[in-house]
């Protein structure tokens, strides 16, 4: 059984990637909100925001916008998983001699692929708006690595939501707090401009360290200890979400 994990996962990933190719609107709707936020903050609100750094506001803003893009993109993973459960195809897969974990991994790998495409589109828009970086290929890969880790962590959260939701709306509702989290972080304004308790929350939630790390990478500055805090957050979030998702799956398929 387990000898087929890779083969089954790739067949099932091919299936859900085809879903995305057949409905590219899932990519478009994923990027609409982040691009709108990018335009709103750079061209409307950004002029009044003092970031205290010498770089342009679009450079300051982009890392947070990328996290918002991923947070809204994974809602589709929960949605697709929920539809599989509703439609009966999930039970067909479960009654077939295939590796059981491959059903989930296919959705997770599809989520990573779709979100990388969405992120690329948003970066493209940011480049048109004047985003500039002298980052080398190695640094771009480091940024991609951080974003993939973030995608994996929130996708496994999406798997929990998709498996346990009772309605379609419930399946995607979990992503709203995730989309909102960057607003109470260093993504839009420096945390030092916030009142005490809010600043404390902003500085001690995962988004701030991830945003600061990616921002430093793009600006070719030292990432300092922030990168370790970010990685610690990402790895522990991923581990916890994965464990809960697998436990939820276990209850579902027993």
């Amino acid at each position, binding site marked *: *059984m387990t000898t*087929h994990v890779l*083969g*089954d996962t790739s*067949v*099932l990933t091919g*299936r859900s990637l*085809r*879903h995305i190719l*057949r*409905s590219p609107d899932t990519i478009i709707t994923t990027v609409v909100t982040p691009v709108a936020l990018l335009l709103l903050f750079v061209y409307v609100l950004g002029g009044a925001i003092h970031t205290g750094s010498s770089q342009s506001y679009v450079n300051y803003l982009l890392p947070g916008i990328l996290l918002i893009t991923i947070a809204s993109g994974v809602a589709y993973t929960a949605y697709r998983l929920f539809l599989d459960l509703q*439609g*009966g*195809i999930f*039970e*067909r*897969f*479960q*009654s*077939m*001699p*295939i590796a059981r974990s491959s059903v989930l991994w296919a959705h997770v790998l599809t989520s990573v692929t779709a979100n990388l495409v969405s992120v690329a589109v948003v970066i493209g828009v940011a480049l048109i708006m004047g985003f500039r970086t002298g980052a080398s290929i190695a640094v771009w890969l480091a940024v991609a690595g951080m974003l993939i880790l973030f995608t994996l962590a929130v996708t496994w959260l999406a798997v929990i939501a998709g498996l346990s939701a009772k309605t379609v709306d419930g399946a995607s509702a979990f992503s709203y707090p995730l989309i909102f989290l960057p607003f109470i972080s260093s993504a839009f304004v420096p945390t030092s401009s916030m009142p005490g308790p809010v600043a404390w929350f902003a500085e001690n939630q995962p988004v701030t360290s991830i945003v600061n790390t990616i921002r430093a990478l793009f600006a070719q500055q030292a990432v300092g200890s922030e990168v370790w805090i970010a990685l610690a957050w990402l790895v522990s979030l991923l581990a916890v979400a994965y464990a809960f998702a697998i436990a939820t799956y276990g209850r579902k*398929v*027993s």
Partner: protein
Amino acid sequence: MTAQPAVQVKGIRKSFKDVDVLCGVDFDVEAGSIFALLGSNGAGKTTLVRILSTLLKADAGTATVHGVDVAANPGKVRESISLTGQFAAVDDVLTGRENLVLVAKLRHLKNAGAIADDLLARFSLTDAGDRKASTYSGGMRRRLDIAMSLIGNPPIIFLDEPTTGLDPQARIEVWQTMKKLADQGTTVLLTTLHLDEAEQLAHRIAILHKGTIIQNGTLAELKQVLPAARVEFVEKQSSLEDVFLALVGETGEAGTTADDPADSNVPARNEMQ
């Protein structure tokens, strides 16, 4: 029969919270036969099928499928079964052909494409093969669903209310498919709400009521349970189904062209009886 039964169910119990759905179910299904599990809604048919197809664990009792215990070795059981659930389990976004190729690949078969083309032809879906399954009529979806279940020629097939929601022609097509399967030696366990369906198809019929099998036998045996036949004179009216089938033709060629051009490819069939 001396051969080992294809399915053996002994003392299966299952409750959900406080509700006892199955309260000790026993029966055997002879290999190569059609076995109908007859019962009203809520009798526990689906729960039993889900247990036999390894989707659910029983609280007590044992069940073996193809000689393998479903609780001890579900992975092995899955290699010899196929499940067609109550709702057609097809991927709406994929085409009919892609659905078949997907299942063939997941069954680790070579020539997935050739298998898909063969099944599309057998189920009169060749012309619709490159259309998304979401555009199919109810009958076509069910045919595709059953075609997907036949991939890899599993020796035992579970069909949970396979004709629910189908029009009379599509229902007859599904019946013919089941008969063909049994002729080829496949064991078919079917659940149904419809007495005539069990009567038409099944070699043995078990009646599941309130979580137990209250009667199990051939049609002739079940008829003996009733009081002896009396002779009465009753005017034989055509049933509405007879009228409907006479008007549209049993092959389904006449009446379905308006919204469902692909159904017109259904080849002429022999009449059922």
